[in-house]
């Protein structure tokens, strides 16, 4: 194998090593997801964390944790972090469109009081 070819193959392999996280990184993300889920469920037991009795604190905490979990799954498990930006753009355009359309719908139905 010529030196140039060897270098090319090595670069290709390195690119593949970068392409997806290692198994251990996936496990670490899963542990984070499990901990955040446990924190979400803890908000249900108001006797444990009395400050969650204040509704806006509860809603802000739950939505923050939900978005963080969704972001982690999409970015790491679905590989949006490594894949081409066009995939991220096509997916998030759907998410953005859905969010906008249905928030407007819910406002129209006075769901938020």
């Amino acid at each position, binding site marked *: *194998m*010529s030196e140039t*070819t060897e270098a090319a*193959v090595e670069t*290709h392999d390195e690119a593949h090593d970068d392409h*997806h996280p*290692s*198994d251990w990184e*996936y*496990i670490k*993300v*899963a542990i984070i*997801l*499990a901990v955040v*889920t446990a924190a*979400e*469920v803890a*908000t*249900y037991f108001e006797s444990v964390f009395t400050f969650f009795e204040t*509704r806006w604190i*509860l*809603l802000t905490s*739950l*939505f923050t*944790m*939900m978005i963080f*979990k*969704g972001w982690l*799954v*999409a970015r790491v*498990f*679905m*590989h949006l972090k490594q*894949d*081409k930006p*066009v*995939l991220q753009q*096509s*997916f998030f*355009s*759907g*998410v953005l*469109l*859905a*969010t906008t*359309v*249905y928030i407007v*719908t*819910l406002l129209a*139905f006075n*769901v938020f*009081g």
Partner: protein
Amino acid sequence: MATATAPATDTHHDAHDPHATNTGISNNKLAMWLFLSTECLLFGALISTYLIYKTRGNGEVLPTDLFDIPFTSVSSFVLLMSSLTMVLALSAFGRNDLDRGKAWLLVTAMLGAVFMGGQAYEFTAFYEEGLGYTTNPAASAFYTLTGFHGAHVSIGIVMLMSLWVAANQGKLTGKNSETVEIVGLYWHFVDLVWIFIFTVIYLIPPE
């Protein structure tokens, strides 16, 4: 180039041929992402409908009266962990470690089946408490939303088992691991939707 290296490199290039598109992404993968993008609108509609109708009980029992949060939390955890086993399957196929890849695929399908078992139990318990599909608008919206999600999980299980059978028949190897990646995208999306449903429908208490 040594003879031993040549076939390996050929296989490597074969695996990359599907990426020879204008976007640099295989058409199948792009199609799956676009499909998932449209699925956001479907689930957005179902979640919004539930939020609009969730208090309309017509004097009957509401889904929120019957939620068993500890039980649903365990189901959610199971589905979340199935996303981990799915990426581990993809990672194993990527390394051409077929035995481990097949095992993780099977574990993922099993975890999906456990989640579905939990949903069947929940629906049965709710029905026995007097909450049928047509009991009130809140019940209809709840069953439609969670039922659609359950249908997606079931389709995912069928796809996972199809991959497992194909791998056992030698039709799925590290060379065409992109098929596992595409099914994985669908599976993670189903998990992603449940993350939203679990918070918005189950955890946010009624005012």
